[in-house]
């Protein structure tokens, strides 16, 4: 029978995805980029939607929330997973509202008018059954997938607007988005790139080799020299792991120092981040914000004598406050950090912030 087979197939797929997540973000830098994670999550959610197990929008949302919680628990630092789940939930809400015939804007935000006039309706329970809902939702998810595939290209297309000739650009670590951005600009303009190697994983080395192969003048510097060379840098362009709800960043460690140095020299700091990295989290939670990996990257076991007597820390992420950021470049254009809250309200529904 096709039904149970498909179900078993799907459960297997989900289990494989979860174990991959647990291994993948183990700290040696993501073995998979966030774009692939986003795509995989979305295709998995599409498959879940395609199953016949649900009858109303509410059921579907419950199923997705349940699976989503498991996925997030597998790798909490990989926020793209949670973001995609919230996007899909928003899609389901919209499609439901459209099927019901009510316009979309009235269901969006809490407003005083809504509170007063629709008080007797009570909560939306998404209980009604619509036959076309499944097809509409799957179509909308397909659109989302196409959008995800084009993000890097959309960002790189804006490169020439921001980079002029003979500039010195600084970056840190390795970001595929920034790599594509710079390579696109290098086709028409000549400029110089300084890459900070970002210890202890030294991902800057890979970035530098890749950029130099595209015939961009690249220089690799140690992390300690970031402030020393900053006076000659015209722009700082970085990627990030997550964009937080207040416009701040959760980026690879060393980025806060880079941002402070750029602020001191009044150098603009440009963040290339596609929209799927935008997350409704705030940086307040000290315990859950940081992620640590094995300290033997910092102080290897060969230093055995002193190893037992010292505390060694190896954090992976850094918090960068929004005051230090000049511009966000995403696949839908450029924004100031103060606009991020608005974008977030368009992408996610407030009730989905807590899954």
């Amino acid at each position, binding site marked *: 029978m096709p039904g149970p087979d498909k179900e078993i197939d799907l459960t297997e797929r989900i289990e494989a995805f979860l174990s991959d997540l647990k291994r993948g973000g183990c700290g040696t830098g993501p073995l998979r980029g966030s774009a692939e994670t986003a795509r995989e999550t979305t295709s998995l959610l599409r498959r879940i939607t395609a199953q016949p197990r649900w009858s109303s929008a509410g059921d579907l949302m419950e199923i997705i929330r349940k699976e989503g919680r498991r996925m997030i628990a597998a790798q909490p630092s990989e926020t793209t997973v949670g973001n995609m789940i919230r996007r899909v939930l928003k899609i389901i809400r919209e499609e439901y509202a459209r099927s019901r015939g009510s316009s979309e804007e009235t269901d969006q935000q809490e407003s005083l008018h809504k509170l007063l006039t629709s008080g007797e309706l009570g909560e939306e329970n998404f209980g009604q059954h619509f036959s076309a809902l499944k097809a509409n939702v799957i179509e909308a998810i397909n659109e989302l997938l196409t959008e995800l595939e084009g993000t890097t290209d959309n960002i790189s297309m804006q490169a020439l607007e921001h980079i002029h000739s003979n500039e010195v650009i600084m970056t840190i670590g390795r970001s595929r988005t920034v790599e594509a951005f710079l390579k696109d600009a290098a086709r028409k303009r000549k400029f110089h790139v300084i890459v900070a190697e970002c210890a202890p994983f030294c991902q800057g080395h890979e970035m*530098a080799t890749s950029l130099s192969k595209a015939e961009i003048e690249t220089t690799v510097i140690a992390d300690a020299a970031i402030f020393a060379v900053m006076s000659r840098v015209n722009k700082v362009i970085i990627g990030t792991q997550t964009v937080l709800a207040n416009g701040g960043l959760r980026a690879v460690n060393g980025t806060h120092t880079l941002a402070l140095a750029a602020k001191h020299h009044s150098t603009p700091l440009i963040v290339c981040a596609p929209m799927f990295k935008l997350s409704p989290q705030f940086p307040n939670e000290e315990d859950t914000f940081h992620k640590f990996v094995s300290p033997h990257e910092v102080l290897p076991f060969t230093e055995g004598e002193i190893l037992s007597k*010292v505390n060694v820390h*190896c954090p992976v992420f850094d918090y960068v406050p929004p005051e230090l950021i000049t511009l966000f470049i995403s696949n839908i254009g450029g924004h100031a950090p103060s606009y991020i809250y608005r974008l977030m309200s368009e992408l996610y529904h407030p009730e989905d912030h807590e899954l």
Partner: protein
Amino acid sequence: MADSGVTDGAVGKDGIQQAKIEGKELTKEEKQRLRKEKKQQKKNKEKNDENASKESEEKPVSAAAPTPTQPSQKAPSAVPTPASLPVPVSEPQPAKSKADMKAGRRARQESERASKKKGDAGQPAATGKAKAAPSELQPVVKRLPEHVQVDNPDVLKKLAKKLEKQQIPLRLDYGHKVSLFSHLHQYSRRAPLTQQIGIPSTVIHPAIVRLGLQYSQGIVAGSNARSVALLHAFKQVIRDYTTPPNEELSRDLVNKLKPYISFLNQCRPLSASMGNAIKYIKKEISNIPSQCREEEAKSKLLSCIERYIDENIILAAKAIAKSSIEKISDGDVILVYGCSSLVNHILCEAFEKKRKFRVIVVDSRPRLEGREALRRLVQRGISCTYVLISAVSYILPEVSKVFLGAHALLANGYVMSRVGTSQIALVAKAFNVPVLVCCETYKFCERVQTDSFVSNELDDPDDLIVTRKGRTQLEHWQEVPSLGLLNLVYDVTPPDFVDLVITDLGMIPCTSVPVVLRVKNVDQ
């Protein structure tokens, strides 16, 4: 011995050539002969040039013209042109009297001596300042040190000539240099200078050879360590020194030291503290009265050096430790960067005095000096935490004070220190954590600098390739034309990031450095 020695261009006599190849020191007569031959060659060449141009000039110029030009040519000029003077004077010779010729020669010698003095003063001391009386504000003629003019081919030629005269090999630059730093040297650690000189070398004292090797391989590193090692090596040199006949100790010893200093400079550019130490030694040597016996003079010099080390390094460290301990309170969390001997000393002293604090050691690639500091502190029993410099903004909210060491303090208040220090000071300022710099006064320097580019040191770029996992894919960086590696050694911290400087003269703000320098000069 076929490959050793300075391979010179063919100068002349085989005897001299042979002696050079064997690495023996040329005797004085041979050196003078060489110099005379070179001058003669130059004169002949210029004469030919002059004759060629003179022939075209001679026709319009009347016979009366050469005579009024003579006295102006013979007048001693403040700006010496020793090479060009002999030529015009030698031409209208039949018209001049013998007395005039003698006067001209004397004037030439005076100007040559004046130029030599200026050239000497510009050597190892990083500032190259002419001796100005400290109570007057005389305009000082500063000559740029050679090691920041690598992109100027004339300077390189001059340096090559000077080293040739002193029989020191020239160290070649290595690898592709980042264009912003083309004015600095970049050497490779795998090609030490000692490979180019014969062993045993009779030109350079073996203690100096060993010291140079230790510097270039990074075995002796750190401002204080290098200065102390230098002074000990000079003590050995002085002990083994004997005055040659018909020479004065005060002048000959200084001349003996010059090639050693050039050699050490080639191994690794001299630090500010080493420059000050050398200035002090030279002054002491030239102040030895000529009637002093050799044994007496030598013991006097040795005791001077001992006293210098004692006063400026050992006692200064004690004084600084005493003042710093007042700044360390119980429950403090102190952040230190890299391995500064002075800061380690302070922390150990504070721990002995039973202060309760813990230390966070910040380290950076590629030198990883912080591990050495970590070992020393842990041995004493101080509780330590260890992070890399990219994690400093994670750890800084826990920190109550930052203690930094310095390589030199510049006259405009900037602190020159290991690369990364300015970054730590920047982040500490952003988190409102006080930054204290500890520095002895002998490291104060009259230079001024505002960024880390104009005067710095480039370390071996291959150090960046080696990571914990072995060599990364940057291994073949030389083959990729658009890839460059930059390994800076020093950087400058602006004075607004530093809250206090603790010196042996007390606790001063960063901007009081020129005041201290003035006071020190007046004392001397």
